[in-house]
């Protein structure tokens, strides 16, 4: 195409007009919200329900008129259970798509990959998974439960029921390493002992020697912090060896990936778990939520998981803060969250704890019973005491690290 003066002028005029038009229409542009979760690969058992919950939360918000008069646009990034993609997508969300907030990260390893990226590019970050605690970062909010909220309750409950000698098996990365230390701490504090802690890389499928070792140690019960699809075979081999009936088990990870539905009742009945959310919680907010969730994703949806609820609540807390701040600006939203914002969530009341950026919430102990999770005992409004012991973002707003418990 030949460019003469006239076509050049026409072109630039049109571009200028388009620019003016789009800037006048700016207020109508949607707010971008990033969801960075594994929708394929080994961790998708966790990621899919999280993204479903996020989708529902955003659809509900948009049906109610959006936020600040603008619609919300969910941008899903599938990290394919691949750590490198976390860095790439976090950068893309912050720099290219200019999202107002990132919700995402499943394993603690993935969180530590994207956290510095989002710090650097000043993009607000919500990590909605139950994890080992201790992250202290003003740019990040953690809506999942931590060991002081769950392990602290479940250890004495299980010890009272079964006995004082606890054998711990855990996934071999920061989550399992740190959580197993918390288990040991609470067991010791309750007058019990931990004869051994065994770690397993995420792709281990043969647990035969470990099962022999556990039998030789003769514990009163086994504590599992195993993670992912391959580790499910531990529960199968445990049951096949006839151990389920003689040595019971408690876990901080079981059922988060719907293991209780994948396995047969004979392989996992009676296991004790402790989380913030169970689908069968009896309260009006939850009944309404479950009804709309099942309407959106089908009545045969296997189970609304702890992580799905964490994600839903994380989004709701952020939306509440945006309303309060009257803006999606990062600092204004952080300050609004730091007023101790609270929502009536399906799991009960959830409040941001300003000094730690974690949540005060209800937890429940439940038992696996025929592919269902039967709630046994409730603990109202638990504080994130583990992180609070080391982290105070009011006093040290520039603190930025993950504290690791020392025993």
């Amino acid at each position, binding site marked *: 195409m030949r460019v003469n003066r006239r076509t050049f002028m026409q072109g630039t005029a049109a571009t200028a007009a388009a620019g003016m038009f789009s800037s006048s229409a700016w207020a109508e542009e949607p707010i971008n919200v990033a969801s960075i979760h594994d929708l394929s690969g080994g961790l998708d*058992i966790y990621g899919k329900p999280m993204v479903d919950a996020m989708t529902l939360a955003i659809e509900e918000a948009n049906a109610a008129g959006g936020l600040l008069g603008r619609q919300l646009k969910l941008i899903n990034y599938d990290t394919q259970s691949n750590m490198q993609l976390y860095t790439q997508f976090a950068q893309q969300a912050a720099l290219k798509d200019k999202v107002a907030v990132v919700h995402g990260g499943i394993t603690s390893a993935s969180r530590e990959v994207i956290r510095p990226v989002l710090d650097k590019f000043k993009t607000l970050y919500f990590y909605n998974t139950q994890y080992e605690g201790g992250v202290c970062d003003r740019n990040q909010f953690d809506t999942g439960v931590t060991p002081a909220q769950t392990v602290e309750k479940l250890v004495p409950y299980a010890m009272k029921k079964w006995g004082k000698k606890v054998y711990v098996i855990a996934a071999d990365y920061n989550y399992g390493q740190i959580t197993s230390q918390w288990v040991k701490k609470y067991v010791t504090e309750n007058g019990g002992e931990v004869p051994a802690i065994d770690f397993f890389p995420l*792709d281990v499928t043969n647990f035969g020697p470990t099962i022999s070792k556990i*039998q030789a140690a003769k514990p009163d019960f086994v504590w599992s912090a195993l993670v992912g699809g*391959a580790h499910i075979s531990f529960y*199968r081999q445990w049951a096949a060896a006839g151990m389920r009936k003689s040595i019971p088990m408690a876990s901080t990870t079981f059922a988060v990936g719907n293991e209780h539905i994948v396995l047969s009742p004979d392989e996992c009945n009676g296991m004790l778990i402790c989380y913030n959310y169970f689908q069968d919680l009896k309260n009006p907010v939850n009944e309404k939520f479950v009804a709309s969730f099942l309407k959106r994703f089908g009545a045969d949806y296997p189970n609304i998981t702890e992580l799905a609820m964490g994600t839903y609540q994380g989004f709701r807390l952020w939306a509440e803060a945006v309303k309060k701040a009257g803006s999606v600006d990062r600092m204004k939203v952080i300050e609004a969250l730091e007023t101790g914002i609270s929502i009536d969530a399906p799991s009960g009341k959830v409040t941001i704890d300003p000094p730690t950026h974690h949540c005060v919430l209800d937890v429940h102990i439940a038992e696996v019973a025929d592919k269902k999770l039967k709630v046994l005992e409730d603990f109202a409004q638990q504080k994130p005491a583990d992180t609070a012991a080391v982290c105070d973002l009011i006093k040290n707003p520039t603190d930025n690290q993950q504290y690791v418990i020392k025993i």
Partner: protein
Amino acid sequence: MDLVALLAIQVLYAIASLALISVGLAIIFGMMRVINLAHGEFLMLGGYAAIVATSHGISIWIAMLVVAPIVVGLIGVIVERTIIRFLYGRMIDTMLATWGLSLFLVGLTTAIFGNTTVGISAPLGSFQIGAYRTSVYTLFVIAVAAVVLAVIFAVMRWTRLGLIARGTMQNANMAAALGVNPPRVYAVTFGVGAALSGLAGAVLAPVSGVFPTIGVAYVAKSFITVIGGGAAILSGTVSASALFGTINQIATFVTTPVFGEVALLAAAIILIRLLPQGITGRFFRRGL
């Protein structure tokens, strides 16, 4: 004492499962010099075949011991006819082609079955050794491995089919000159290798569960076993499985699973350094 017995069973089981997952690869590699990087996916397909058949009401024994090998064997023959037969003698090309095939099979099974772990409960219950318990299924896996190896030995040693296969393996041109049709021998052998992999995948499915990428967990170990074993298919597989299985299981029991894997890999590296032709390059040279 009963702990020693239990540990002995675990070691036997480790040897048996290594031999099972490797023997199909050993046959394909040993006979045809084809490096089949889709081997892990053949195991995975065997697992899925057994699970799908069981969920359609077929007895778990028939599903594992009959359906899975037939299904994967047929897939093997199709793969040989459509891909591998054009690549005999081109080792690097077969690696590339079978690696592509491996990615394709992982993608296909993910699309069909999803990426979640599926499984069947191990049948047969458990039994008591002194103060310890272990599953009867462990013994079943050991028995299957023993039977498979015995049958391969019998076929190779005493049947005309085995004679032809061994002859073709030693010198394909001479076999052809004597009236054997090497392409047919290759197709059948590849099918048999695939069928054995399918059987192994099915038999191990109740123990480890099945998901589309589980082949990765198997393929490295089977290659290490086959390379460590060397040229002779049977005695190589058995001796390497025995060595690596024992080291892996005892190291796992004494330390942790991480060091168990490290010990296995370290043993493999030392072995290949000392015996570059594998165990049967030096010992059992006249074995099958």
